[in-house]
């Protein structure tokens, strides 16, 4: 049975980026920062592609909330194989997960999707929130941080890692799933895909954010770690290490 799948994707700084607070002291200095598709969202896109391949058909829509530049991020998903893209365009730098979730839910609600895929977490704001929030707003089941997935026509079973174990969760479709690393191995866009992506439809819709009651006071670098020291070389340094851990650091 062909599935209609939405994948929510975010444009984030590359994980190699050295973060520098900007002049406003509330967000990062974006000068020279390379932006990429959120790594967890690559797993979500890949899963959508595999499900479409397994079903022998279907449609995959990549949806992002973000600035104009997020069109590039959407093109990456299209190059991997998504069919079309939607940019909910705003220049606001959002820290309010619910505000983003509301925009996504509003756009996704009339879409008739069988499956709504998200990354587990965005590596910039690290909230781990948008997927479960959208599910709540749409009133559909959600399983977060999945590492295994079994789907039938109208239902599914997924596994999610918990502390020292794995939960097995059954759900009905339509459903929201957020994807943990390990579910699959994302493909690299092939040259053919990159060429094809340029011609795929990408709709841009301006949106307004409505806050839910949270505001940024400051974005700062974590305190520098106090300069450490090499206690010695080779196994003979072990007693000195243990002494330091016990007497100085009180960590043993």
């Amino acid at each position: 049975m062909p599935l209609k799948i939405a994948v929510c994707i975010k444009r984030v700084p590359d994980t190699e980026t050295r973060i520098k607070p900007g002049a406003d002291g509330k967000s990062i200095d974006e000068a020279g920062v390379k932006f990429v598709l959120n790594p967890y969202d690559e797993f979500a896109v890949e899963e959508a592609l595999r499900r479409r391949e397994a079903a022998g058909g279907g449609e995959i829509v990549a949806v992002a909330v973000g600035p104009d530049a997020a069109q590039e991020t959407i093109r990456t998903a299209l190059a991997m194989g998504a069919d079309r893209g939607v940019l909910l365009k705003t220049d606001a730098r959002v820290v309010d997960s619910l505000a983003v979730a509301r925009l996504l839910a509003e756009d996704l609600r009339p879409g008739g999707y069988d499956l709504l895929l998200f990354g587990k977490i965005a590596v910039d704001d690290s909230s781990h929130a948008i997927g479960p929030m959208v599910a709540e707003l749409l009133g559909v089941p959600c399983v977060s941080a999945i590492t295994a997935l079994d789907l039938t026509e109208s239902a599914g079973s997924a596994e999610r890692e918990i502390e020292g174990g794995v939960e097995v969760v059954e759900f009905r479709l339509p459903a929201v799933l957020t994807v943990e690393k390990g579910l699959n191995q994302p493909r690299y866009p092939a040259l053919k895909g990159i060429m094809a992506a340029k011609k795929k439809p990408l709709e841009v819709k301006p949106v307004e954010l409505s806050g839910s009651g949270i505001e940024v006071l400051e974005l700062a670098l974590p305190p520098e770690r106090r300069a450490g020291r090499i206690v010695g070389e080779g196994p003979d340094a072990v007693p000195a290490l243990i002494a330091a851990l016990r007497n100085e650091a009180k960590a043993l």
Partner: protein
Amino acid sequence: MTGILAFVEQRDGALKRVSLETLTAARAIADLMQGSVTALVIGPPGVDTSSLGTYGADRVVVVADERLRLYQPGAYTAATAARVREEGPAAAVLSATALGKDLGPRLAARLGCALASDVTALAFEQGQITVTRPVYAGKALLRLRVTGRPSVITIRPNSVTPVERPRAAAVEQGSAMPAEGSVRTVAVKEPPGAKLDVAEASIIVSGGRGLKEPANFALIEELAAAIGGAAVGASRAVVDAGWRPHADQVGQTGKTVSPNLYIAVGISGAIQHVAGMRNAKVIVAINKDKDAPIFKIADYGIVGDLFEIVPRLTQEIKKLRAG
């Protein structure tokens, strides 16, 4: 009520230790706003809640039903949201565990309120809660003011030290919700000798590619066992190579951890690894390359061959424990 609702997590009928951290944080904020703390426990009948008063709960509400032994997202969200609506706390706080990271956002969306997730510090300033949370996987800290009420706050394990603040907490029964049907947790698979999770451990010994092959992780496991109560972590290089499960991975695409002690063995200290562990209180590095970046953030380092150093370290710690 002016105060805080603390969601207390149980696993298989026993309270999780991390919940006492969350309760301690709730108590501290409630004291600053001169409010009270209600601890909410959802789970099977018979959970021992006696420690909740000890750690500062004024009241304990227990929603007990055998069908709530496992985390049932629908029923847990409904029961918690109902409590928040009834009591009108300034905030609901949860631990940022696998459960809390799932329940927190659902709760915020259902209540239509703000969420601050994975916070490492809370304060109360000019009548409002402020929080600090690591972003960019720990490369920066974001300070936020929570202006809405209520709000939902999840607290990262190991960021608060539990403190006893005894209260004569009255225990009430809350009403049990039937499990909602469209999503259901049917089982929890625990590997034999279930391991301590890196996200919850106060000491972590992590290994990297310097271990050369998967079997050598025995050295890391022996060291963790000798220390006692330490979890085994890993760099992405060895997770990607299939030596260790992804659950053990520390870093930007693994877990962000804040233990008291982090021992990095044969790990170079790539920016994505460091992002995940730089908030450890004390960092030890063992690496044969004196220029490895891990030494830049380590408090203590030993330069040399891990295959000589780690067995000696294990042996010395065992001696210490025996003495």
